[in-house]
C-alpha cells in the first residue's frame, strides 16, 4: 500500500507494468506456474512454446495462439457435441468462427516474424451441460481478455500490438455477451480490466490441456 501515491491513479494500480522484459515474460510465468502446479506439469507445454519460437513477440504470439486454439476448440468442438440451444448456440457458432479466425491470424503473424506456430494441444473441457458450458465460456473469455491485456505492453512490434488489440477487443465483447446471458456483470472488473500474468493464465488453462 505504499505506492498508491506514485501511481497515476489508484484505479490504475492493477495496470502498472513493472519493468517486464519480453524475455523474462514467459519464463517468469512458467516458473511461477511451475512452483504452484509442479514443474513437470507445466514444462511440456511451455518448453514446446519456447523451443519452437524465436523469442520475444513470437513467444507471446504463440502463447496467445494456444489460448485461441483452446477457445476455438471449446466453441467448435465441445459446443457442437453438447447440442446447445437458442442464444448459447448462436453465440457458440459466431464466437467459434471468430476464435478460429484468430488462430489463423496469429499463426500467420508468427510465420511472418520468422517463428513457428505451436502445434495445437489436445484439450479436455469439463462442461456437461449448456449451463456449465456457458460458465466455462465466461472464464475462458475473461481470462483471454486479461491475458492479452497483460502481455500487450511487452510486445515490441507496433504492428503486432495493433493486431493483439484488435483481437482482445473481440474477446472482451464475447466475455460481456456471455456474462449477460448467464446473469453476471458484463464488466466484472468494473471500469478497468485487469491484466493477467502469464502464470495466472497458465494456472487457469492448465487443467484444460491434456499432456
Amino acid at each position, binding site marked *: 500500500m505504499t505506492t498508491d501515491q506514485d501511481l497515476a491513479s489508484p484505479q490504475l494500480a492493477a*495496470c502498472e507494468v513493472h519493468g517486464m522484459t519480453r524475455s523474462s515474460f514467459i519464463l517468469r510465468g512458467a516458473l511461477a506456474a511451475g512452483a504452484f502446479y509442479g514443474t513437470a506439469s507445466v514444462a511440456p507445454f511451455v518448453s514446446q512454446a519456447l523451443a519452437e519460437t524465436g523469442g520475444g513477440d513470437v513467444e507471446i504470439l504463440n502463447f496467445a495462439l494456444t489460448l485461441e486454439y483452446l477457445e476455438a476448440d471449446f466453441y467448435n468442438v465441445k459446443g457442437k457435441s453438447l447440442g446447445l440451444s437458442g442464444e448459447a448456440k448462436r453465440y457458440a457458432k459466431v464466437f467459434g468462427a471468430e476464435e478460429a479466425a484468430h488462430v489463423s*491470424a496469429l499463426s500467420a503473424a508468427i510465420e511472418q516474424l520468422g517463428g513457428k506456430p505451436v502445434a495445437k494441444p489436445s484439450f479436455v473441457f469439463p462442461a456437461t451441460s449448456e449451463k456449465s458450458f456457458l460458465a466455462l465460456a465466461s472464464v475462458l473469455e475473461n481470462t483471454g481478455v486479461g491475458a492479452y491485456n497483460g502481455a500487450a*505492453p511487452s510486445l515490441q512490434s507496433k504492428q503486432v500490438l495493433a493486431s493483439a*488489440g484488435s483481437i482482445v*477487443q473481440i474477446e472482451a465483447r464475447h466475455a460481456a*455477451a456471455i456474462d449477460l446471458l448467464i446473469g453476471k456483470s*458484463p*464488466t466484472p472488473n468494473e471500469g478497468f480490466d485487469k*491484466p493477467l500474468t502469464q502464470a495466472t493464465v497458465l494456472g487457469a488453462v492448465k487443467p484444460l490441456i491434456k499432456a
Partner: protein
Amino acid sequence: MLNSPDEEAPQPAGIVERLVRDDVDRKRFLKMAGSAGAASFGAFVLAACGSSSSSSSSSSSASTAAATPTSTTASSATGDIGILNYALTLEYLETEFYSKVVASGFFKGKVGSLIKTFGAQEASHVAALKAAVTKLGGMPAADPMGKFPITSATQVAELAYTVENLGASAYLGQAAKIQSPEVLASALAIHTVEARHAATLGTLVKKSVTPQGAFATPADMSTVLAAVKPFLS
C-alpha cells in the same frame, strides 16, 4: 529520438494544421466549436497534436500518417499526454451522455442499472485519465460539454451502441502510438471495458456484439473527432 530519420514526414500532420489547410473543414470546425466550446476543444486539439512534427513509421502508411498525429518524434510524454487528453475528451462526452440518459428515466430495472453502472465507469475513466495526464506533467483537457439528442429509449440505446463502438475503436486506434508501457496498460484496461459496454448495448438493441467480425477496426483521431462533432455544444 528519431526512430527512422529518413522517413520523417515532410509536413506537419496534426489536426489543427490540417484544419488550417482545409478551409471547408476549418469553417465546419469553427462553427461546431462555437464560442464556449472553442476554448476548451481548441486547447484539447492542440494538446492532442503534441509535437507538430511527425514521422511515418511504415512505408505503406503515408495516408494514415497524414491523417493522424504520430508521436515517434515527440518526447514520449508529449505524445502520450496528447493521446490521454484525446481519450479524456471522449470519456467526458460518454460520462455526460450517460448522465443525461440516466436523468431521462427511459430505462428501469436491470437495463437502467447497467446504464448507471456504465456511466459510473466512464466517470472513473475520466478521473483516471485526468490523473494520468497530470502525472505525466500535462494539463488535463477541459470538459468539452456535450449535447446529445435524448428522445426515446430506442434512440438512446442505439446512440449508446454507436458511441461505445466508436470509443472502443478510438482506443484501439491509439494503442500502437502510445510510448509508455504504463500508459499503454492503462489504455488497454479501459479499451476492453468500452468493448464490453458496446457488446452489452449490442444485445440491448438486437445488433451484433461483434459488428466488425473477428477483428475490431481501429479509428484514427480525425475520424473519431469528426464523428463526435455533432455532440459538441
